[in-house]
């Protein structure tokens, strides 16, 4: 692993393997999607090539064998059956095993390698591979050949019944994405009418991959700018799975007398939509002005007046062969005619072999940076932030000695503050990665579990693009695996039970991420059997955690699932149910300064909701003073601060003290006692009471006073030799002193 080339190879292959896994899993669901096979093939090819370069010949050979297999899938010779998908996934494990050996983290699983290579033979030697798959495949292939130049094949039936010609054995033409050039010149009155170009742009963004360029040339100078008019126009490209009709249906609302809102399908979306679209304008004009050729006229009327359903119908009725013939015939005509043909063909989903639109590769320039370097950079920025606040204090001191000098310094410090904040924001941005990076590997986990346990489980992912700090994302992985396993094992019932209960035999687990007020919410939801609150309650009683007479809300009952050693699972399985899970999940989430909540409906399913901060590096802090020391409380935990009246403070026998706030009794903790410090105020009626909350529990903390409130850079104490109970970390104050950040969850216990 010393060689940098090898190291780079390992890093690259690690990424490819992840992509490969996702590709294979998707292919299993859509075995006839050509772009997927292409992607998998390409990945395998890259591994082979790379392995050859770094002299890993065994690995290169191995990848080569699978590349060959995939090549045959690609050419349509064989179809990817579930068996083949399993083999490909095993091969993936095989590749991983090679990588382990290269990394030096494990031995080569020779048994797996041999087995998978042998299994290739099954697909290689035999046209019709083993078992039930063969029949299915025969029946799929034969008709395809028979009907190669078949009768009316209505495109929509292609997925349902495999009777299309062999050349269009792929679904891609059906589902694959198409490119459109867009030209959005809205009416300048648009904003006055209460409409907004953003509405359309957002809508387009949702249905596909949108790249727009604003054109500023029509914006007048500031003095003559009419603020209520729209001066901008946009052009660009949209790559979407939607048909032209669907697109037209969206755009139609924005078209009008003064507006020029149109689109044009393109064969391959241009590299630079900004430039190409200027060409589009002129081409459009040309099309409008020249009116020779019957086909073009027809198209124009269709585009303009005829209902779109009718148009689609007409197109699908056409025989593919006839259409191809027509196309080739017309290609021989003028170039302008050719464009028109394209225009007519794409909405009709041309069944030609080569996909109309290869996936667009956007070239975003990027470099690979070790996280370690980012960490260092972030630490440096953190120091700069601290120095900045020290400078701020200093300028105040200088001001009292020399006012004009102090004024100058203070001005400079304020200017610098902006750059520092920007720097801080940017470095945080750089560290953000989509949470999907830990969601997608779950597909494999779910698939393997479902196969092994004879369950049918479908994993859905929403909001995978939501971004979280890399560290948070990584540390979330463990708890997430745990929760998904819980859902699969205890949540989703077996297919028979599900059917009996009137549910779809396939269970669904939903992984969902979304952003909410500076937090990221991650939900793990299943439509399984749910958790019976009564069973939890009884179990807690039998474990003597609560007394049978205790009255608890449902939320509180579910919260007990997080107590160490708590489980309601009647049998222990190999993946979960040992009762050591949920409390460690909770600990992990709290280590990320997050919270976890369970809600469940018996028979309907369970929802676990994680609330996580965007980053662990910086929090909004409230500085409080106890004695001579300043502590920091995460502002998000603070509800309010009050100075209670004597009658609000109640003492309970052996149960401590309570503070009554608006009818609610909240336990009081004298922080100085907990921290063994000598405070300025011993009594809550003299000092200040901070009401903090974690999850649904509240606590009053007696402090001397609040001194400040600002964002603080968190310094982990794990890098030191000591763990301090009740302290989550440390930060550095403006005067350079260290201040401890209170660990609110642990103060509640």
């Amino acid at each position, binding site marked *: 692993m010393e060689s940098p080339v090898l190291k780079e190879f390992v890093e690259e292959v690690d990424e490819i393997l992840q992509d490969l896994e996702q590709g294979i899993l998707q292919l299993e669901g859509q075995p006839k999607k050509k772009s997927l096979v292409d992607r998998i093939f390409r990945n395998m090819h890259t591994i082979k090539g790379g392995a050859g370069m770094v002299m890993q010949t065994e690995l290169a050979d191995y990848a080569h064998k699978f590349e060959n297999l995939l090549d045959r899938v690609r050419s349509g010779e064989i179809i990817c059956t579930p068996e083949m998908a399993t083999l490909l996934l095993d091969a993936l494990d095989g590749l991983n095993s090679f990588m382990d050996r290269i990394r030096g983290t494990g031995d080569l699983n020779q048994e797996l390698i041999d087995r998978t290579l042998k299994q290739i033979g099954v697909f290689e030697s035999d046209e019709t591979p083993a078992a039930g798959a063969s029949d299915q495949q025969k029946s799929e292939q034969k008709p395809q050949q028979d009907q190669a130049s078949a009768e009316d094949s209505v495109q929509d039936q292609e997925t349902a019944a495999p009777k299309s010609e062999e050349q269009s054995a792929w679904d891609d033409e059906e589902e694959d994405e198409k490119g459109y050039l867009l030209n959005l010149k809205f009416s300048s009155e648009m904003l006055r009418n209460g409409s907004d170009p953003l509405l359309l742009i957002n809508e387009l963004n949702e249905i596909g991959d949108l790249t727009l360029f604003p054109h500023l040339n029509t914006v007048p100078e500031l003095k003559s700018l009419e603020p209520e008019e729209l001066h901008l126009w946009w052009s660009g490209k949209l790559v979407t799975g939607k048909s032209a009709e669907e697109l037209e249906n969206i755009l139609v609302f924005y078209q009008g007398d003064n507006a020029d809102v149109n689109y044009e399908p393109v064969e391959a979306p241009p590299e630079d939509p900004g430039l190409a679209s200027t060409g589009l304008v002129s081409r459009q004009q040309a099309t409008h002005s020249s009116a020779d050729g019957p086909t073009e006229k027809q198209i124009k009327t269709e585009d303009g007046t005829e209902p779109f359903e009718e148009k689609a119908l007409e197109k699908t009725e056409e025989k593919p062969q006839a259409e191809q013939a027509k196309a080739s015939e017309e290609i021989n005509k003028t170039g302008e005619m050719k464009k028109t043909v394209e225009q007519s063909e794409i909405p009709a989903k041309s069944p030609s072999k080569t996909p109309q639109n290869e996936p667009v590769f956007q070239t975003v320039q990027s470099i690979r940076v070790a996280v370690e370097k980012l960490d260092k950079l972030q630490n440096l920025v953190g120091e700069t932030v*601290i120095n900045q606040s020290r400078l701020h204090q200093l300028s105040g001191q200088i001001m009292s000695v020399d006012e004009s000098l102090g004024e100058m310094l203070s001005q400079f410090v304020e200017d610098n503050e902006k750059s520092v904040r920007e720097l801080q924001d940017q470095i945080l941005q750089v560290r953000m990665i989509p949470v999907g990076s830990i969601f997608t590997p779950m597909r494999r986990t779910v698939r393997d579990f479902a196969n092994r346990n004879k369950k049918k489980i479908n994993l859905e992912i929403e909001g995978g693009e939501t971004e979280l700090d890399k560290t948070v994302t990584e540390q979330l992985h463990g708890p997430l695996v745990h929760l998904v396993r819980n859902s699969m094992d205890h949540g989703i019932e077996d297919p028979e039970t599900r059917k009996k209960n009137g549910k779809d035999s396939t269970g669904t687990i939903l992984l969902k991420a979304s952003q909410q007020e500076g937090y990221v919410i991650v939900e793990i939801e299943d439509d399984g059997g749910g958790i019976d609150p009564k069973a939890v309650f009884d179990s807690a009683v039998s474990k003597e955690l609560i007394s049978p007479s205790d009255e608890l809300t449902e939320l509180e009952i579910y919260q007990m699932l997080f107590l160490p050693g708590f489980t309601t699972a009647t049998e222990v399985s190999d993946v979960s149910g040992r009762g050591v899970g949920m409390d460690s999940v909770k600990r992990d989430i709290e280590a990320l300064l997050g919270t976890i909540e369970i809600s469940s409906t018996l028979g309907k399913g369970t929802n676990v909701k994680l609330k996580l901060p965007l980053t662990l590096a910086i929090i909004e802090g409230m500085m409080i003073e106890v004695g001579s020391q300043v502590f920091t409380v995460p502002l998000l935990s603070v509800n309010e601060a009050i100075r209670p009246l004597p009658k609000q403070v109640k003492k309970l026998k052996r149960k401590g003290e309570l503070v009554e706030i608006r009818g609610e009794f909240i336990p009081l903790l004298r922080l100085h006692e907990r921290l*063994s410090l000598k405070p300025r105020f011993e009594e809550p009626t003299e000092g200040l009471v901070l009401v903090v909350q974690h999850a649904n529990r509240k606590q009053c903390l007696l402090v001397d006073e609040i001194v400040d409130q600002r964002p603080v850079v968190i310094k982990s104490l794990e890098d030191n*030799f000591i763990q301090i109970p009740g302290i989550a970390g440390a930060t*550095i104050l403006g005067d350079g002193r260290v201040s401890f950040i209170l660990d609110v969850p642990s103060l509640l216990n």
Partner: protein
Amino acid sequence: MGSVNLSDEEMEEMNLELTHNEGAQLITFILGEEKYGLDILAVRELISYPEGLTQIPGMPDFIVGMFNLRGLVIPVMDLRKKFGMASEELHEYSVIIIVQVEEKNIGLIVDSVADVIFVKEEDIQETTEMAVQVDTKFIKGVAKTKDEMVILMDIDHLLSKSQFESLMDTENG
């Protein structure tokens, strides 16, 4: 180095270092009556006693607090207190040796730093049976130089996790 005039003695020492790569370079410091040595590779830097040490709640008394070293939060241990010696008033000449073990940092307060020396392996005697003030568990051995004896401190043991955990257990019940 070219312009520096080295005495014969220093030259000899340098030659010793160059020719004998089996041995260790030590930083020596004074604590009470004795001279101690620490492997120089474990030492990150030396600083004078900082202002504004933050006390750590619930810690044994020899952990005197934490301070900010250019953005790093570093705990400070008073070795006199740790070894049960009479505690001295800390002043501006008190020195903190910042040691780094396994990526973790800690500051050790000593009376003063003496020297950097090189000791050959054969001069190191790995014994723990000595009449010293310090608890012998924290002693790795003794190194003999020309005219004195340096006690080698076992920094790994001094800062081992179990040390801290056991201490914290006794402190916090």
